[in-house]
């Protein structure tokens, strides 16, 4: 069975490079991201919830989390036990589609 962890990251958001570095941290350990949800405040404080799982079975989950915890801009990482993900929903009226450089209403 694939191992999964749900984590909460408290961080400082300066630009999307934060997400890039977090994703790269898990990529380097051959881990996958199941879902993620981020909320950034005007003052830069930011909470990120995400699921990471070890499809490669290299056993890097613990190491990846503790390594992430020492990255500049990360205040701390919490591993959430018994966490349940309620599917994120969004409502909208209309969309504009971008497909390989072509825009359509």
């Amino acid at each position, binding site marked *: 069975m694939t191992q999964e962890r749900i984590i909460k990251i408290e*961080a400082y958001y300066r630009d999307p490079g934060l997400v890039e570095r977090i994703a790269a941290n898990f990529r380097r350990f051959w881990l996958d991201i199941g879902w993620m949800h981020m909320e950034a405040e005007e003052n830069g404080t930011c909470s990120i919830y995400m699921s990471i799982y070890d499809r490669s079975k290299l056993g890097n989950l613990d*190491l990846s989390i*503790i*390594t992430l915890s*020492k990255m*500049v801009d990360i205040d701390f990482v919490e591993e959430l036990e018994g966490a349940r993900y309620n599917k994120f929903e969004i409502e909208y009226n209309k969309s504009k589609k971008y497909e390989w450089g072509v825009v359509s209403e």
Partner: protein
Amino acid sequence: MKGSELLVKSMKREGVKDLFGIPGLYNMPLYDSFIEDVESGELRHILMRHEQAAAHAADGYARATGRPGVLTATAGPGVTNIVTGLITAYQDSSPVVAITGAVNRNAMGKLSFQESDTLGVSFPVTKYAVEVKTIEEIPVWVKNAFYIASTGRPGPVVVDVPRDVQMEDIENVNYPETTNLHYRSFQTVVDKDKVRQMALNLMKAEKPVLLVGTGVVWANATDEVLKLSEFLGCPVVSTLPGKSAIPADYPLYVGAMGYYGRAEASMVALESDLLLAIGARFSDRTFTSYDEMKDTKKIFMSINLDPTDFSKGIKPDVSMAGNARVLLQELLNDLSVMGRKKANYAWNRRINELKDYYSQYSHPPDDGYMRPWQILKALREALPRDAIMTTGVGQHQMWAETHWENLEPRSFFSSTGMGTMGFGLPSAMGAKVGRPDKVVVDYDGDGSFMMTGNNLATAVDEHIPVIAVVNDNRTLGLVRQVQDMFQNKRIVGVDYGNSPNIMKYAESFGADAFEAHNYSDIMEYVRTAIRENVPTVIRVPVDKEELALPTLPPGGKLSEVIVSDPRKNNKN
């Protein structure tokens, strides 16, 4: 005041006096703003011949001085060229600050001329990289960058400043007095229980050994390590970069252990019943097989700044996170109240047996060519005690690992984590700029030397009198020996032709050049180079069949060490 002036002033507030770099369109405002500082001698700019070399020079400067080395590069190829130098510094925990110029803010993301997504390129190879978004942020991020680079586990930081931010004007400047970051330097936690547990384990152990790494260098903890070793009568081994922490003539130092380390050092580590790692991670280059180490059932203890290292490879039985110097002082205090440790004659005898046994293999006699161990012995005789040696990467680096006797802390630098060929010459230049009072030697191989050798031009132009001793065997010797020994002699893609003539190459830059035909020549030319005080290249021909020994088979265990040339005999 322009942003570029503010950049210069901010750097000077951080104590920057030397800057390695190459100008281009996007860092030109910075250059324009430090002309007066360069003219007055307040700032020295060293114009390198490739940005990779600028990064290595800043790295060498940092390792030699203990202060961040600084470089500048322009956007695009300037930035991509420093990547190898940045990751080299990152792997070896060296504080480097790179100030890069970027395209104008409104040009970003549009495939503008020389646009390179500096952050995207830099994130994976640095401790941190930041884009300065407004002119007000310049002093803040320069201060932050130096703090991040030099605290915790040191490492490289990139500060990317768009050209238009450099060109903007500002009236009221607020220089920050402190940093304001979501970043913490690692804490030193003195846990008295753990100190006591370590002390008791050390007192009880019959065959203890200390494994010393780079953390000891950065914590300036050499004295404490030697006191602990003396108190316990305990041998010391090191990682390859940890060589720089321990004087080679310390009687209880056995040498650097690991893949190409001294066999006796690896055996002492294997046979010990307790190993205390100080400022050393259990890397795959030092412990080539974690299972082999675990099978020894020894007690592992670790003192390390970065607590995440306790989660890698081998989990220590007792660990303390923090500054090695502080924690060793606590340990020494605790030990001192326990009384002297009883001398363990059997362990000492065993260590001497191992030294004697392996010495018969490590000093082979001449067979027509000069031998690396004797080359390094000649260098040792000719160089002052506090000389700094850098190396390239290849066989010569491994020969230096086993045979170079550095006698002072911070006097041996090599690209050990990344294994970057071409590190030797520019890092030597950086070390010399930072420590002009020291004799600095780049001990190199021809393959590695040629990767950044064009920077000899800078050494001559800028009067940076380093001595490059180049072992010339016209081959990529370390790859060749693996092909020879472990790939059925299928030697391919490693042997060079006769070009260039290293002597003429060096002379074409205006450096002095000598060819050594024997060990006396090496000593004489080194002494001449020191006396003349000019950049000098000494070519030392070596046999391309020469091996870097000891070695292991690929993926091998330390106990599978090969100490003699298997092509000549079967004696391992």
